[in-house]
């Protein structure tokens, strides 16, 4: 089984702890001039996203996590799983709600997403940073209405709701930053 020595620790390295896959977020080498060295790390649980601190005796080995990121195309959702396809091998995988989470609202068929696989099983999914979607519902929005701070809610084709400027109308396509959930621009 592959393993890493603490000497190889650096941000991004994927390791197994207590049966779960983790990514190293921060690694600090702590060593008295005469004495035992330690690695004080912050690690993120790749299943839950939770960040914890963990200390290791330097020189110890930790099991490597078989985790990799692959670009896959989103196909469809059957109510239980979201299906993605590898663009070259055409291999398909189904990701459950634990994996897709809140990002489901940014998934549009044909879009390329980044899927994190652990032992070949989808662990998490990142949609494209920017998606283009049609507004299916929004109030007309009156010019001069400043009570809403110059914007209004708009429902997109996937059900996602974003705040858009008053001049943006139902039926228009807009570009959204999925990392912040914010409107970027109209798409002609």
């Amino acid at each position: 089984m592959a393993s890493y020595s603490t000497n190889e620790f650096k941000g991004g390295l994927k390791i197994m702890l207590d049966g779960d896959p983790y990514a190293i977020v921060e690694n600090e080498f702590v060593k008295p001039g005469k004495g035992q060295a330690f690695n004080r790390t912050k690690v993120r649980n790749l299943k839950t996203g939770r960040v914890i601190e963990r200390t290791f005796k330097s020189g110890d080995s930790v099991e490597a996590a078989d985790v990799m990121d692959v670009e896959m195309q989103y196909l469809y959702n059957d109510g239980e799983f979201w299906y993605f396809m590898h663009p070259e091998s055409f291999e398909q995988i189904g990701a459950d709600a634990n994996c897709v989470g809140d990002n489901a609202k940014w998934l549009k068929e044909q879009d390329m997403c980044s899927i994190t696989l652990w032992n070949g099983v989808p662990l998490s999914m990142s949609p494209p940073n920017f998606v283009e979607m049609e507004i299916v519902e929004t109030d007309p929005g009156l010019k001069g209405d400043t009570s809403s701070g110059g914007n209004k809610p708009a429902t997109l084709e996937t059900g996602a709701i974003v705040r858009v400027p008053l001049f943006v109308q139902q039926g228009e396509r807009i570009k959204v930053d999925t990392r912040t959930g914010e409107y970027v621009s109209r798409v002609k």
Partner: protein
Amino acid sequence: MPVWQPTATLAMLRRRADWLAAIRGYFAGRGVMEVETPMLSRAANTDPALSSFQTRYHGPDGGTLYLHTSPEFAMKRLLAAGSGDIYALGRVFRDGEAGRHHNPEFTLLEWYRVGWDHHALMDEVAALVQVLLPGRGALERLDYRTAFRTHLGVENVHRADVAALKAVAADLDILPLPGLGDDDLDGWRDLLLSFFIIPQLGVDGRITFLHHYPASQAALARLRDDRGDAVAERFELFLDGVELANGFHELTDAAEQARRFQADNRARRRLGLTELPVDRRLLAALAAGMPACSGVALGLDRLLMVATGAASIDEVLAFPVTRA
């Protein structure tokens, strides 16, 4: 930033150059002679906590040479040869050490004062620190036992066993730590010291010396009795929670030094590390007679970090190992 460029600013490198000149001026004014010692040595530092780089020498009587982890052994041979007070200023090498406070090669200032004890040398270390960091505040001495009592509530660390130290660590939420064994008393002491005491030392502008370490951590220091416990006449310097120097009232007994080298190699074997050739020339020098003295090694890069508020050692080095 393009990778050919230095990671330190030119202003930082100027400060470093000014310090090197100030240090040489300081010692010249006090009659301490600068010496140069070999960076390549036939013998290695056997300390199990240190890892030496090694290389091959292909000349006559070629073979493995080790890059020095400090100039200590060679300087002690000079002391035995009658050099009197000496200092060395230069790069030393420690394999596997990289991080915010570590680079595998760094600048060490090491000096020896003949006839001085470790308390007198602590005073001089503080005086030099005040030359380099003008206005740095009061000198504070804290013994190892008191530090554990004050900061962690351990009444007498010299008699606390692994179970007791482990219980303290558990309360401080740093476990699990499966690699640290129940037979590694010094490892547990180091853990608590490194994470829960050292960050509190030398804060609020103080110059703090921690001294009288457990006898098992004496390294090359003499032992003494302290209220019924054997302790080492060893000290370390801390500013802003950063370890900066290590000093000893030096062991001069050749037989005892030989025993400590052998104990190091036994520990190395137990830890699965390579046993290393001990420095027989140092042992011969001690046998011939080294004067009573105290010595200290000060990490200049880290002191420069403290002086300038640098967050990483890379900020004070022209080219850290990642750009070497």
